């Protein structure tokens, strides 16, 4: 029982990353009803780009510069991937969701083509520092993850609650038809959510890398946890995504320590099915009946 605090702490740290991933998925879903299955692959591509720019494959830059270039590229990639599926978005949710799988496949293929399928390691520029409090081992990495997550969530909150584009986003997610009547451009809001989701994905992908190694599939398999977090939180709730992320992080850590470590995906399947059965719309979603 002595380890439990340490486990919860480590789970919270990884849960923050799942939350960032889930936020991106939920942002896109809320505005356009598209489930972006390419999210993990695009985020993985982004992490590889940072790796490529710092490790001399595509260039040899300082960390900050590499990050800036990658941000710019991701901006373009997300815009392109939105415009590819844009003709489908208003037609059918499921067709556009299938199309995101196509984008994911292409992103995965490009990553393998450019960087190979080998596992690489990418070091974040963090100080080597750690402290021990009881059974909790707190490292500079943990602090960085918490800080970056808090900053990202805070910025996102300000963006959505306090800016014009945020108000537009909320209007579109509440009622697309009324928003269009009021003269909002739905496409622009969709594009906004795709780009912001891509940037959140980049941040999450970069922060995951030190815990696992970077391979062309590692980030996309990580994304299942983000999906589970989104489901637990209710697919269309931004605070739910954060709560779900932390919950999934802690739960996975406890289960893999106390039960067995090799069943991560099976636990996630069970959690997803259980949550959807008990709370069909997620824990934090608004309740409501269907009108016939």
């Amino acid at each position: 029982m002595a380890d439990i605090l340490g486990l919860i702490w480590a789970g919270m740290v990884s849960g923050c990353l799942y939350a960032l991933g889930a936020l991106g998925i939920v942002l896109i879903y809320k505005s356009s009803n598209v489930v972006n299955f390419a999210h993990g692959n695009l985020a993985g591509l982004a992490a590889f780009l940072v790796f490529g720019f710092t490790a001399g494959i595509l260039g040899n830059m300082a960390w900050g510069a590499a990050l800036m270039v990658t941000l710019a590229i991701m901006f373009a990639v997300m815009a392109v991937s939105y415009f590819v599926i844009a003709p489908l978005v208003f037609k059918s949710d499921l067709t556009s969701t299938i199309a995101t799988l196509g984008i994911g496949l292409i992103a995965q293929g490009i990553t393998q083509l450019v960087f190979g399928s080998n596992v690489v390691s990418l070091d974040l520029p963090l100080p080597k520092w750690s402290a021990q409090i009881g059974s909790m081992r707190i490292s500079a990495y943990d602090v960085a993850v918490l800080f970056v997550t808090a900053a990202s969530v805070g910025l996102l909150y300000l963006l959505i609650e306090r800016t014009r584009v945020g108000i537009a986003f909320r209007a579109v997610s509440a009622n697309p038809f009324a928003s269009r009547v009021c003269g909002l451009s739905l496409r622009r809001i969709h594009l906004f959510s795709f780009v912001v989701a891509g940037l959140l994905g980049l941040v999450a992908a970069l922060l995951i890398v030190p815990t696992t190694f970077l391979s062309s599939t590692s980030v996309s398999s990580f994304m299942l946890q983000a999906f589970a977090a989104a489901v637990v939180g209710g697919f269309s709730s931004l605070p739910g995504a954060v709560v779900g992320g932390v919950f999934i992080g802690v739960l996975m850590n406890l289960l893999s320590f106390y039960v067995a470590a090799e069943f991560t995906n099976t636990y996630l399947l069970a959690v997803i099915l259980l949550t959807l059965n008990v709370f069909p719309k997620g824990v934090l979603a608004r309740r409501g009946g269907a009108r016939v």
Partner: protein
Amino acid sequence: MSEATMTSAPVARATNAAPSKPVTPMSERKPFPLRTVAGMMVLLVLIALPLLAGGYWTFTLGLCFANAIAILSVSFLVRYGGEVSIGHGVFVAAGAYTVALMEKYLGVSVLAALPFAAVAGALLGIAFAYPSRNLSGIYLAVATMALALALPELLLYFSSITGGYEGLYVKRDALPGISRDLQRYYVPLAGLVVVALLLRQFRRSRQALALLLIRTSAPAAESFGVRRSWARLSCMALSAGIAAIGGALLAFSSSTVSPNSFTLWTSIFLLVGSVVSLYSLGMFGSLIGGIFLTLMPLLLAGAGDWVPILYGGALLLVVLGANLMPESWRARLGGGRA
């Protein structure tokens, strides 16, 4: 035999149930003899092909037929359920492992194991669909994705039964007296023809009508006494059963099963094949998907890393292309068919 089943974006109609022009049901229309004749010709060519082509091609085409059945199961779910699954590799695996395990422990061949494989797949489908019976499109898609990712873990954990990474072999002949190469060609071909014919019959059944009604308007169907959760369960069971038949024949014609062949990618590729076949429920439409899925990587030999790009590109092209088609074409291709 029916290229008429080729359709564009039925998913589009699944979510937005705009009333389309009433179309005469196929059963009332006069059968189109030319098309049937053409179908028989192609079938005859397929039957005669092993006499002309070498062992490599018969082997690969056998895989194509088995994959085509698996693709039919994905299309079935899309057409009748209006749902997208990216976890059908799991049901395919259920069929494949049933055959392999029954051969290992009971010593029976694929033909004897086939009904059990179908039942095992259908039961697994129900077991999975029951907790998710009230879920709509995206939730089901996410749940199937988790299912696909969980399968390899479970297969590896029970490695004393499933053979772990190595997998199992399927060696026993199905039909004595015929060379093994030919068996691996004709048995999946026969399976594909039978499944396609059964699906054609199914289209005329009450069950099919109930499923289509549910898909078009759930409240209307419920007022007719068709329960939504029941429709989901039966649709999933049928689809998973078909997938398991495909898996059983796939195990037979590739003569081996292993967790490596049933990853998340398998499931995604099956969906790609289904989209490329335009969700056809006919034999030739699904065969196009199966050929695309099996032959493309072989034709681009050595293009390993290009395969995801190729599949992803094809997926986007077909989905976007179908969307660009004029409404009248789509209506004609879609017809009154499921």
